[in-house]
């Protein structure tokens, strides 16, 4: 579309304000803002208001403003403490597991072994299926009376009788964690694998020549190289772990007892089972607040990293 004599080209392009009109800005951004805002900002405001009122579906017609009392009530509730403890435990268990497993798998798949191409293709599968499907599959595997995993362990002689994974408070949270790790590990695996695949060979070779063992290579080359992706994965997986819901819904319903009552599950039951919308909203904001704090911390960490890099 060269028009050498058009007035536009007479102006050096660096000098003029290249780009589009404000109308274009508006047209391309506002529809998205509206759609997203409708389903996120308005509900956010509504939830914020709800969290400051006493809203009990069993007492309709009266939703008085009670300020921050919902927050105070939930913070004092013992079930909240249990939920926080369980969530903390679950996150502390799963996030490192997902990352470590993902890392190990990436390292493994990076090796030029025959047949690993197929594995590299298969590795994304657990992550791709709906969480509900994954949950139901794992229930069929874990059940203490007919679970296939129990059958496998029995056949291999690892156990001498079926294990009630989801009936023991100690084991239940580990079982949910196992299902969670199975489902989540592919993501860090493929990201780290991609990162490994672009490490310049010269760097690694130079280090090997200089006598650096595998561990030294790992610590001084791989980790620094992957620092960025690892931090992002850390944040993402933490968010996912903290907000786990579908798995609890399908596998345990929060039980046995209150062993797998995680925070998002507790928020759900407050709203839909206990019909206390004020509490549910307050809990949601507490959870969102915690996530925001964490993300802010992370961003600061990233900025520090970037500056020191």
């Amino acid at each position: 579309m060269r028009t050498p004599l058009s007035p536009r080209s007479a102006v050096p392009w660096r000098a003029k304000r290249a780009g589009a009109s404000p109308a274009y800005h508006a047209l391309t951004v506002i529809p998205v803002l509206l759609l997203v805002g409708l389903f996120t900002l308005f509900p956010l405001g509504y939830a914020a208001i709800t969290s400051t009122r006493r809203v009990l579906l069993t007492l309709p017609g009266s939703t008085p403003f009670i300020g921050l009392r919902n927050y105070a009530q939930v913070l004092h509730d013992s079930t909240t403490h249990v939920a926080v403890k369980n969530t903390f435990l679950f996150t502390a268990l799963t996030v490192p597991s997902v990352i470590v497993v993902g890392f190990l798998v990436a390292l493994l798949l990076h090796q030029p072994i025959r047949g690993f191409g197929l594995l590299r293709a298969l590795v994304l599968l657990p992550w791709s299926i709906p969480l509900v499907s994954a949950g139901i599959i794992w229930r069929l595997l874990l059940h203490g009376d007919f679970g296939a995993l129990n059958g496998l362990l029995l056949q291999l002689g690892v156990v001498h009788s079926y294990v009630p994974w989801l009936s023991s408070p100690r084991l239940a949270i580990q079982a949910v964690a196992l299902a969670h790790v199975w489902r989540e590990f592919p993501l860090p695996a493929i990201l780290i694998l991609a990162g490994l695949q672009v490490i310049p060979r010269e760097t690694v070779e130079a280090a090997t020549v200089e006598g650096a063992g595998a561990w030294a290579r790992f610590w001084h080359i791989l980790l620094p190289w992957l620092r960025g992706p690892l931090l992002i994965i850390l944040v993402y997986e933490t968010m996912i772990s903290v907000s786990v819901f579908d798995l609890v819904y399908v596998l345990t319903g929060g039980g046995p007892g209150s062993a797998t009552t995680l925070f998002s599950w507790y928020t759900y039951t407050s709203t839909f089972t206990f019909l206390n919308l004020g509490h549910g909203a307050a809990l949601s904001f507490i959870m969102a607040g915690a996530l925001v704090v964490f993300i802010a911390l992370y961003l600061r960490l990233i900025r520090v990293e970037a500056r020191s890099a």
Partner: protein
Amino acid sequence: MKRAAGIRQISLGGAGILLGVFIVFPFLWALSASLQTELAIFRRPPSWAPAPATVANYLYVFTGRIPEGYAVRGLLRSTITQEARLLPPGLRNSLEVALGVIVVNLALGPLSAYTFARERFPGKEIAYFLILGTRLLPAVAVAIPIYLIVKQAGLLDTKLALTLIYSAFTLPFTIWVLTLYIRSLPIEVEEAALVDGCTRFTVLRRVVIPLARPGLAAIAAFSFLFSYSEFFFALLMTSSINAKTTPVVIASISVNPDSSYTLIAVGIVLSIIPPMLLALLFRRFITSSLVASMEQA
């Protein structure tokens, strides 16, 4: 030296096999269970391979032919849940909704992402933050207000409602990925086109989109996977098979006392085929776009 290398090969290969089993065992069991009779599954240990294999449950789902043993016996009939017949329409609904979400994302995503990537305008930072930051609030908090919105619009129990909601939930990620992806493209080509008198929109259409095709393919894949898997809002907003999606149907089947576990397994198998196919086909796009976004972030 060679022996060490040989041992290394074998142990790595062994680790690979273990990994393969870890990934695939749950899927294989679901498949096997779907082809067996329930009696076989409840033995300890269960029969691993279906012997004999029976497709009776699959036939029931697709054709309504009641498997042997469930046939009418006098006045008292053994139960088999009719909910399983809802799997094919549920799958259809899921696919329709997912397709709709892809269309919305591909239409609106590149448009706004390109503006964010290359343009400067007042309120840009705020708009960007608003779009991305809203993902932090858990679904439970926004469930009832969203329900109210959908109800006011008269869209309860419709696929359109789900499409809109999922689009609102996937657009932030789409825009984030695409913005970063576009920023990673060489700016000179676009600038040259601008100099030649093209509008931003034309540049988008003729220059950026062709270059961003891998990113767009990834976005399509992500949008599909998210919409297909979404459970909570689908559960809330749908109440009949007009709009019920696959996760809702299989969850319902799994708690129905009339479901044989083999039937549940059939549901699982059918529900995971579409996303698995997609993941296998779009694997490279998904990986590369995620990596590209992370490098930019």
